[in-house]
């Protein structure tokens, strides 16, 4: 039995899947407990929260698609008849966007262009050399004379895309209305009327409008990306749209896996310090004060440099570029986690200090419940809201931090697509004549949308889970050009 593909599980893939499983488990658990569901109902009722969640879920969809990795099978070896697989690791997104990945031009070309961005010397029909813009190998290659046919062709593509978008959108609208109607046990038409008047608890109208706008923009892009380079091509002729899509996973992984890494440290140490007090508290406080006194970027830089030395002196550990890049991404998440767990740990310590004096904890103590059990059963469930708020608020900061770190040279592997590597490559292109703006613009738009919706969603979650957690306590764990967070010496 031979398979045409072999699934590959990279380190970060495994962690992403673990994270998805954890979230699903958490959702299932909360769904059974009314008091835990309450705050999330509030999130579902906030318009900005639901709109940003819609945008975010599109990003997450792309990121998840890009997480299923596999290797393609090669024709089997004649002598041994053994299965062999191609060395490059692809993802489900690569499979879907195969045309985008394969159609590589020679160098820069503008969005929707049929010609290259710079003139080249070519030989004319009669053999005389002339300088002109050469036609692209793939972008607009189906056109006879681009000057006349290009705009009508693009318009046709846009119309096709919009028609597709309309179909998808109506389908989504019907499903959502149907589900809402079925759950409220009402008629479809009634529910639909309520929905469009904005009379429902959950702002489905806003969600559907957002979805419609997104589809109207995205579907024509997808349709046209089969014929043109919709965001142009970069220096080595790669399609910028493809690069942007690939960057999404990197940003999402950094924003989420980092949290997964830091969470065990922050939770156990923070609660232990606050509940056990004494020398345990002193030791943990010393640990996090020391770590947080080192400027974050410098600690990350030092650690990444050290890892680079290790990777360069032990090349045999990593058998492919993808694995190497993936290991580096994982390491970056770990080190970002190490620099960012201190903030959450401090918050949890303060909260545990407060909680341990409350009656229900003292009652548990009086009944002879052991300290570990009290921490797990009575303290932990009561600090979960702080954890969630910190995670959600930290996400956007981490995505932004990745860009800076890649610029500094201690970010993701140069072989890995990310917003940081895109910006880094694109900033020199702004100085070219004529200017190359599309890579930077694409990175800007996608990153802005991702971070903005993450910020808005985080605000909605914070308002719902704990309106009293002040902005001062729950500020992002990592910031770009200054560090705050000096509240260490004044434990609550």
């Amino acid at each position: 039995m031979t398979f045409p593909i072999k699934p590959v599980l990279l380190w970060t893939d495994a962690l992403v899947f673990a994270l998805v499983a954890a979230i699903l488990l958490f959702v299932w658990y909360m769904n059974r407990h009314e008091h835990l569901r309450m705050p999330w109902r509030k999130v579902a009722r906030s318009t900005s929260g639901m709109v940003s969640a819609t945008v975010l879920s599109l990003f997450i969809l792309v990121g998840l698609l890009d997480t299923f990795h596999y290797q393609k099978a090669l024709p089997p070896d004649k002598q041994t008849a053994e299965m062999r697989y191609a060395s490059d690791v692809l993802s489900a997104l690569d499979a879907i966007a195969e045309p985008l990945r394969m159609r590589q031009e020679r160098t820069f070309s503008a969005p929707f262009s049929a010609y290259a961005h710079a003139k080249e010397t070519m030989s004319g029909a009669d053999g005389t050399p002339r300088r002109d813009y050469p036609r692209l190998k793939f972008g607009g290659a189906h056109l006879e004379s681009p000057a006349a046919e290009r705009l009508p062709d693009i318009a046709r593509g846009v119309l096709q895309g919009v028609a597709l978008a309309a179909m998808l959108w109506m389908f989504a609208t019907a499903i959502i209305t149907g589900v809402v109607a079925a759950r409220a046990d009402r008629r479809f038409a009634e529910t639909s009327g309520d929905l469009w008047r904005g009379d429902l608890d959950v702002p489905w109208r806003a969600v559907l409008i957002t979805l419609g706008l997104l589809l109207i923009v995205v579907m024509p892009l997808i349709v046209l990306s089969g014929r043109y380079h919709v965001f142009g091509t970069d220096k080595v002729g790669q399609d910028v749209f493809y690069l942007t899509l690939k960057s999404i996973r990197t940003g999402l992984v950094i924003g989420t896996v980092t949290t997964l890494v830091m969470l065990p440290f922050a939770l156990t140490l923070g609660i232990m310090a606050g509940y056990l007090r004494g020398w345990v508290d002193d030791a943990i406080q010393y640990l996090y004060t020391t770590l947080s006194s080192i400027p974050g970027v410098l600690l990350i830089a030092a650690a990444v440099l050290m890892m680079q030395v290790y990777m360069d002196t032990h090349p045999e550990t990593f058998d492919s570029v993808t694995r190497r890049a993936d290991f580096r991404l994982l390491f970056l998440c770990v080190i970002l986690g190490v620099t960012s767990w201190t903030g959450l740990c401090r918050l949890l310590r303060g909260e545990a200090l407060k909680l341990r004096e409350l009656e229900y904890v003292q009652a548990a103590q009086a009944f002879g419940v052991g300290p570990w059990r009290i921490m797990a059963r009575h303290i932990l469930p009561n600090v979960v809201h702080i954890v969630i708020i910190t995670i959600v608020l930290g996400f956007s900061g981490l995505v932004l931090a990745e860009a800076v770190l890649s610029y500094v040279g201690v970010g993701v592997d140069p072989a890995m697509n990310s917003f940081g590597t895109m910006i880094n490559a694109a900033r020199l292109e702004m100085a070219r004549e004529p200017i190359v703006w599309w890579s930077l613009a694409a990175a800007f738009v996608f990153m802005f949308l991702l971070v903005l919706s993450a910020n808005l969603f985080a605000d909605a979650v914070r308002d719902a889970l704990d309106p009293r957690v002040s902005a001062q306590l729950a500020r992002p764990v990592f910031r770009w050009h200054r560090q705050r967070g000096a509240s260490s010496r004044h434990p609550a």
Partner: protein
Amino acid sequence: MLRYLVRRVLYAIPILIGVNVLTFALFFVVNTPDDMARMQLGVKRVTPEAIERWKQERGYDKPLLVNAAATGAARITDTIFWNNSLRLFAFDFGKAESDGRDIGHEIATRMGPSLAIALPVFLVGLAAYVTFALLMALFRATYLDFSGVVLCVAAMSISGMFYIIGGQFLVSKLWNLAPISGFAGGLSAWRFMVLPVAVGLVAGFGESSRWYRTIFLEEINRDYVRTARAKGLSEGRVLVHHVLRNALIPILTGVVVVIPSLFLGSLVMESFFGIPGLGSYTIDAINSQDFAVVRSMVFLGSLLYIVGLILTDISYTIVDPRIRFE
């Protein structure tokens, strides 16, 4: 007060030792000096003699912690830990690995340009953001306030690097108003400072303004504010004289701690604008994998941060007479 300060300073020493040991472990134990030499000299085709020479030139051929070959105090002092880690406490940073220049001297000369950019950004920014946040608080729960918040959230969702690239493109390339990068000493420096300072101000606007606004809104519901209003004071006077003054404590918590770190400058800004400050020094060191410089900067950064924490404590007693340290 004095006794409290002495205790705070003493408390900082174990933290600095911790930082020192941590960096030592990171730079010398995780990877041996041999690894670093191979890295600097090129991983392939490097002779053992070249590695030995590289290590000897930099004093990395000594034992890590205890020198068994030496006698007396030299058993401890003639080691890598003593020479390259503990000496940092005496601000003896040693020499850079890449070009052999004295790091202490470089730091001293590069502090000026860093400060020339960071200080105006800090001072003007503080005033501007607080003013903007006060205005938002004044017009709270109106469309003005709402659009202000939207502006802040949008502004903080843009990576700082886009502000720099955009600023350089618009101001320098399109409008030709300021040099795109570079720096000059003396009075003519202002021409090079305008753009970085402006970009720094814009980049920090969203997050800081929103944060100050939240602090003000927390204060604004307190009883003393209601009393002030009941006395018939104007809203502006209430905000400036009562809310602002009482909001100073949370503001100071975030602001004072960064003052000493202003010396370090900003990594990204300085390298984009070609400012010969400590930020670009660090970036260059990271790119040329000059571990001696990175090590020194880690130590210096931690030291300045701890100084910032102590300054924060002192500033509390100034703004709030109720706070007394025993």
